[in-house]
């Protein structure tokens, strides 16, 4: 099947390769593409078209058109004409019901005409309304290109690499190579990229990436280059665009038949892979390339039935005739010619898209019939034929008798847009080319306008009795070449933060959960039991995830006074206060405790997930105010655990010499002392409502301190507890969780913490907005509630009044084993926020009664906390 060997051919006839196509073995030579090997094996139909499922064969052989897209090793939409053969590759046809030769969906081509006009999904398949789900199901099953295996894991590993180049040359043709050489002679670091997998360049002075497809040009000289498994994000000081030209098709009925080819496709088949593209050929060309193809064909032994040169004669009608989608002949101005190959050339068009993305303007050169880029922006250079230089005049007619009714006349082969579709769009009022693009999807297919942009503009010009210059082009946008989403996503990164005690939790059987990027124990298997042991005796929880900052400097007191609504300047050293951060809009951002270590030093904790944002917030205000304060984030450096329960003091006594009596270390006191031999900061606070000590110490001692506490607590029946028991305990105490009980609209006045806002302070972030809230009156308040019948509503359930609309929502709810009640917190209108008032809550599709509680359910006076 191959033509005799000759120098310059790509294939190495000594080295055989084989792959499978649809399960059948196909033999190939090294140097073949999958398409050339399939062509050699006799394959002529390579795909079925997008909408009409018409048979399609090789057209451009240059990786531009959609005609040879197949699924290769599970990756759909691979253009096999540009995909080198690999031993053992598995190649499948796609977008077909049946086989390439007999596709059941081909019926759309024969019968679907009246039902599938342009924009048909907006009009023909919408009635009757009830049938839409059926249409939708059908459309979804046939739409799209190729199928992904939903159950496949990541088959390929993709990476992103950031790179720099002084000069990046896009395109490895003559002009590109010359430019690369010239720049490297000037001592520049040059990288050249080209999409051709067979690029052979003698490049000693510069780097070549091939195949590598430049996807676009962004600001700052950013050019992402798709190199298969790696995406290079190039930053280039100078970008040289040498993307050359793209051969344009002609628009006539039957121009998509298998056997209609562009000159370069013919050239590649003959020269590169030594394949005979047909037996009898007709050539219709608007430039020299068709004539060159004709002489190559003659050399290859193909009979040339006729050559029509559109520069010399104007044709009125070209109609391709075929059977079963395969070209059998052509009728030109009444003359019938049998042929199995029709070479068409509508001239060459500069591939200016990348330049246009970068900001160049595009102008129509009416004399030569091409769009050329002008006003090339700084830092970018265009060289070679992409500038329009060296392109001979070629202005073919917009279409050749598409209205004759002798078959479909395709302007766009990717999306199966015919001349009729475009004319209909104009008739319906889509008079601008940008609207036509959106309505008909012309230029929106896989070729991204390479083959259809200029023909569609020409057609629009003729139908609107205007010219190409006034029709203009559509906006060029990245990506210029198709790219797999996997490549854009890069390597999967799911960062997980683990505390220094993580592995002990695992050994203790903890069920881990995500909180932000942290991995934390949800519980150790018995949330209610763990909560109960805190009440009954003592428990310990890892709270290393808390955000921790040291704020130090002469202005630190003033700094915190300005950031928080309550006071910190009057605090005595080694005392602790609760603080809530507000935005200037008065909204709650985060909460935590602030301990004063000495006159100029504060130890600030934040929520586990808010640490980064609070640090950023502090640093920002420090930059705005310019105060004499330094902020150090010690979140990762320090571990923290909370020992809580009536026996907590007994456990602590075994670990430290510190005076732990209620007088020596009372509620909201801080101390620095050795715990199990580790220098620690001890905070006496009680998020869970029992006597509690929060110990902060260097992370590396995490496991040691944790083990020491468990050992010391053994006699008291100490149990580690996770996040879920902690949530039960804090709810019993009615302590809020920022982000759970509050959202981006909540303020401290309405979140029932009015005591925290010291509105008599001169200023603090959020003060003025809180004053406005005060002035307008409180509307919705955060309150506690208990259910009358003990059913636990879902978090997010609605609060309703009998027979009326929803008036609020549940933010937290749990069964409290201690109280033997279903309790929770909810936002309700202010008039409902009174002790003992009742409302209804949606539970299990019905309504249940709940009673408002304003004081903590557990230890309302904080006696246990202070004991």
């Amino acid at each position: 099947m191959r033509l005799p060997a000759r120098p310059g051919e790509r294939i190495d006839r000594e080295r055989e390769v084989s792959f499978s196509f649809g399960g059948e073995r196909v033999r190939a030579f090294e140097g073949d593409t999958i398409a050339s090997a399939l062509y050699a094996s006799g394959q002529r139909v390579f795909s079925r078209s997008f909408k009409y499922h018409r048979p399609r064969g090789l057209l451009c052989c240059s990786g531009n058109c959609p005609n040879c897209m197949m699924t290769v090793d599970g990756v759909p939409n691979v253009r096999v004409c540009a995909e080198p053969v690999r031993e053992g590759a598995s190649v499948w046809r796609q977008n077909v019901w049946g086989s390439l030769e007999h596709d059941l969906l081909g019926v759309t081509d024969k019968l679907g005409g009246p039902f599938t006009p342009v924009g048909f999904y907006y009009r023909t398949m919408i009635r009757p309304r009830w049938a839409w789900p059926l249409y939708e199901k059908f459309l979804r099953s046939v739409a799209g290109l190729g199928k992904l295996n939903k159950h496949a894991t990541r088959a390929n590993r993709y990476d992103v690499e950031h790179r720099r180049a002084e000069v990046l040359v896009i395109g490895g043709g003559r002009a590109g190579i010359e430019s690369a050489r010239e720049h490297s002679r000037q001592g520049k670091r040059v990288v050249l990229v080209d999409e051709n997998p067979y690029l052979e360049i003698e490049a000693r002075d510069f780097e070549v990436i091939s195949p590598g497809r430049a996807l676009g040009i962004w600001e700052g000289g950013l050019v992402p280059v798709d190199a298969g498994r790696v995406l290079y994000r190039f930053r280039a000081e100078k970008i040289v665009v040498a993307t050359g030209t793209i051969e344009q098709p002609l628009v006539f009925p039957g121009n998509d038949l298998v056997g209609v080819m562009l000159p370069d496709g013919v050239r590649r088949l003959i020269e590169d892979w030594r394949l005979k593209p047909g037996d009898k050929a007709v050539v219709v060309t608007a430039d020299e390339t068709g004539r060159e193809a004709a002489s190559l064909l003659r050399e290859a032994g193909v009979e040339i039935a006729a050559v029509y040169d559109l520069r010399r004669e104007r044709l009125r009608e070209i109609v391709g005739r075929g059977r079963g989608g395969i070209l059998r002949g052509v009728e030109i101005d009444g003359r019938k010619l049998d042929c199995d190959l029709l070479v068409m050339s509508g001239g060459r068009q500069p591939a200016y898209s990348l330049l246009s993305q970068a900001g160049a303007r595009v102008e129509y050169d009416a004399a030569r019939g091409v769009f050329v880029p002008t006003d090339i922006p700084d830092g970018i250079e265009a060289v070679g034929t992409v500038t329009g230089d060296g392109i001979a005049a070629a202005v073919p007619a917009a279409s050749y008798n598409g209205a004759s009714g002798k078959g479909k006349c395709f302007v766009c082969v990717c999306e199966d847009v015919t001349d009729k579709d475009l004319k209909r769009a104009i008739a319906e009022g889509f008079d601008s080319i940008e609207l036509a693009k959106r309505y008909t999807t012309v230029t929106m297919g896989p070729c991204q306008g390479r083959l259809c942009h200029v023909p569609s503009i020409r057609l629009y010009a003729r139908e609107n009795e205007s010219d190409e210059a006034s029709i203009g082009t559509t906006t060029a946008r990245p990506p210029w070449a198709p790219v797999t989403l996997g490549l854009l996503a890069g390597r999967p990164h799911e960062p997980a933060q683990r505390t220094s005690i993580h592995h002990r939790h695992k050994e203790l059987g903890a069920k881990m959960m995500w909180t932000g990027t942290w991995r934390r124990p949800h519980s150790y298997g018995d949330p209610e039991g763990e909560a109960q042991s805190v009440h009954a005796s003592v428990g310990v929880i890892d709270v290393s995830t808390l955000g921790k900052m040291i704020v130090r400097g002469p202005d630190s007191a003033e700094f915190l006074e300005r950031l928080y609504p309550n006071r910190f300047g009057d605090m005595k050293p080694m005392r602790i206060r609760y603080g809530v951060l507000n935005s200037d809009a008065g909204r709650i951002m985060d909460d935590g405790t602030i301990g004063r270590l000495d006159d100029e030093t504060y130890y600030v904790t934040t929520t586990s997930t808010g640490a980064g944002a609070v640090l950023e917030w502090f640093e920002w205000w420090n930059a705005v105010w310019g105060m004499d304060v330094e902020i150090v984030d010690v979140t990762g450096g320090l571990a923290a655990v909370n020992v809580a329960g009536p026996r907590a003091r007994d456990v602590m006594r075994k670990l430290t010499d510190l005076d732990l009596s209620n007088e020596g270390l009372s509620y909201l006191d801080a101390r620095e002392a050795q715990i199990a031999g580790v220098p620690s900061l001890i905070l006496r606070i009680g998020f869970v409502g029992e006597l509690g000590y929060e110990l902060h110490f260097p992370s590396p001692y995490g496991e040691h301190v944790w083990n020491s506490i468990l050992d010391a607590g053994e006699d008291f029946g100490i149990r580690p507890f996770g996040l879920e028991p902690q949530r039960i305990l804090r709810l019993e105490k009615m302590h809020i969780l920022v982000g759970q009980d509050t959202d981006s609209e909540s303020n401290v006045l309405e979140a029932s913490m009015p005591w925290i806002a010291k509105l008599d302070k001169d200023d603090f972030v959020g003060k003025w907005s809180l004053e406005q809230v005060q002035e307008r009156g409180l509307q919705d308040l955060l309150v506690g509630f208990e259910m009358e019948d003990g059913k636990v509503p879902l978090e997010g359930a609605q609060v309703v009044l009998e027979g009326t609309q929803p008036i609020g929502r549940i933010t937290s709810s749990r069964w409290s084993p201690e109280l033997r009640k279903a309790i929770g917190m909810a936002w309700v209108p202010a008039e409902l926020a009174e002790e003992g008032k009742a409302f209804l809550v949606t539970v299990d599709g019905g309504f249940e009664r709940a009673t408002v509680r304003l004081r903590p359910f557990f230890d309302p006076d904080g006696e246990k906390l202070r004991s």
Partner: protein
Amino acid sequence: MSFLLDCPNCGPRDVNEFSCAGEVTVRPKSSPTLRELTSYIYFRRNVAGVQREWWYHRQGCEIWFQAERDTRTNEVLSTEVVEPSSRAGTPGPEGVATPDTPAV
């Protein structure tokens, strides 16, 4: 958005390393009227042109600085760490945001 930003500490870096806190606003001095307060909190000049804005080198040195950027072209004209002397109530180049719509 793919431009480079000159971090005052680290030099030119990819914009994705930074977070932008929007245009520089002026915090009212004391007891603003409701209109002044809502203008400060909610209204931005949103210019098509050069604006002064806050940037934070989140994935780098964690410094806050101000940049002058042309919002039409993303050209960054300058970046600087604001000096303490000029910090308090640093106005944007053309003063405070003035809303066109009544802010009540």
